[in-house]
């Protein structure tokens, strides 16, 4: 019998894969970048998913501050873990895209640097989470840190406008409409939405696993005592 998790993975995973296949075979090549631009359909959705994870982190942090509960804390951790994976993917795909277009794998560009900062912050959150011994202390401190990390997102988003940078300026959400053809844009929106849903599903699954492992830990402790 196929479990609920496998079904979810097959469903959301296949929607994401359909988007990639369309990106590879359906949309036309870009006028200036040629075929290499197709990585956009992976790079942009994973970066949106990373931002979305930070949004989920912020939401659960506020929730935990208003009404402290273990569920919100575990959701924060799940969001950070998934967010870290998506941020690393954003950096990796950006680097792969950067080599043929900018000529380098890495540059200390504003957008790239601020995204790296986000990855470091996600990783720091995980270290911090484990460094606080008491659960109540962890609830408060991690929630506060979660809000501070989420405050970094507008800086990353606006970095291409604020600083002189190699990274291209905002292409989709900008005054005067998107600077892409409609079929490219619709596919990008599709890929972004499916990746966001997939990210949300991953966060929920990870939260579920964390709850189970916590329950198991408590059970073992009670048996021991």
């Amino acid at each position: 019998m196929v479990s609920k998790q496998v079904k979810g993975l097959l469903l959301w995973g296949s929607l994401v894969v359909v988007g990639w296949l369309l990106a590879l075979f359906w949309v036309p090549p870009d006028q200036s970048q040629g075929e290499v631009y197709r990585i956009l359909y992976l790079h942009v959705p994973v970066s949106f998913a990373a931002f979305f994870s930070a949004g989920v982190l912020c939401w659960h942090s506020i929730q935990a501050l208003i009404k402290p509960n273990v569920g919100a804390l575990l959701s924060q951790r799940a969001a950070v873990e998934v967010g870290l994976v998506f941020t690393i993917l954003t950096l990796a795909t950006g680097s792969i895209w950067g080599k043929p277009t900018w000529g380098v794998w890495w540059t200390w560009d504003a957008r790239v640097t601020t995204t790296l900062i986000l990855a470091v912050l996600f990783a720091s959150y995980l270290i911090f989470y484990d460094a606080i011994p008491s659960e109540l202390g962890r609830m408060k401190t991690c929630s506060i840190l979660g809000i501070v990390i989420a405050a970094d997102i507008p800086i990353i988003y606006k970095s291409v406008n604020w600083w002189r940078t190699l990274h291209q300026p905002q292409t989709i959400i900008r005054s005067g409409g998107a600077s892409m053809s409609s079929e490219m844009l619709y596919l990008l929106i599709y890929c972004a939405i499916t990746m966001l849903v997939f990210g949300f599903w991953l966060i929920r699954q990870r939260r579920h696993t964390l709850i189970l492992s916590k329950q198991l830990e408590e059970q073992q402790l009670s048996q021991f005592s």
Partner: protein
Amino acid sequence: MNAVSQFKTLFTFGLKNEWRHKERMFTPVLFSLAVILLFKFTSASFSEDIEAKIMIGQILVTCFLALQIILQRTFELDDTDGVFTLIQTYRISPSAWFCAKFANIVLLGLLVIVVLLVCMNVLNPGQSELIWMFFVPIALAVLALSPLGILLSALTAQANGRQILFPILYFPLSTPVLISSSSVCLQYATDNAVGSPSAWLGLLVGMSIIFFTLCLLLFAELVD
């Protein structure tokens, strides 16, 4: 006792405490002097415009690290004196506590900047006018970074391995402020050849206000 009186008492007490433990007060100043002298004696001679750019880096790095020393020890004395336990029975306003700490740190930060700039002035007599132009952007950076540092210091106070955790959290969060501050300095050094500094100064002021408000609110939540 209302919040304003509490702020005044805590601020004065904080200053007296710093004065009583003079090594706390003078360590960041001596540290910055030692670093800037090391920079001077180890760097080679370059043309005037490159010298100016190197100088910005030297001043900012030194100031940033000295500020980190101040911030990392913000709650050291409170921890030793058992303030975190005392506030459970004797209620003080978290906002007053935060503002008093903020004022103390900004004062110490300004002391470091002034000493640093005087020292740079002595070491680079030809650049005197330019060096004093750096005061405003660096002071604004201190204003923006202090609330963040206080909050992180309070967050990591109870954590295991806080000496490592504090810089891990503080460095990435402080990057936008440092970039803005160095950009203003660079524009002064290049005589506004790479753009106007007013946008960067506005960003620094904006970040100072946002960080102060956010950290003030979160600090109150933390010690509640």
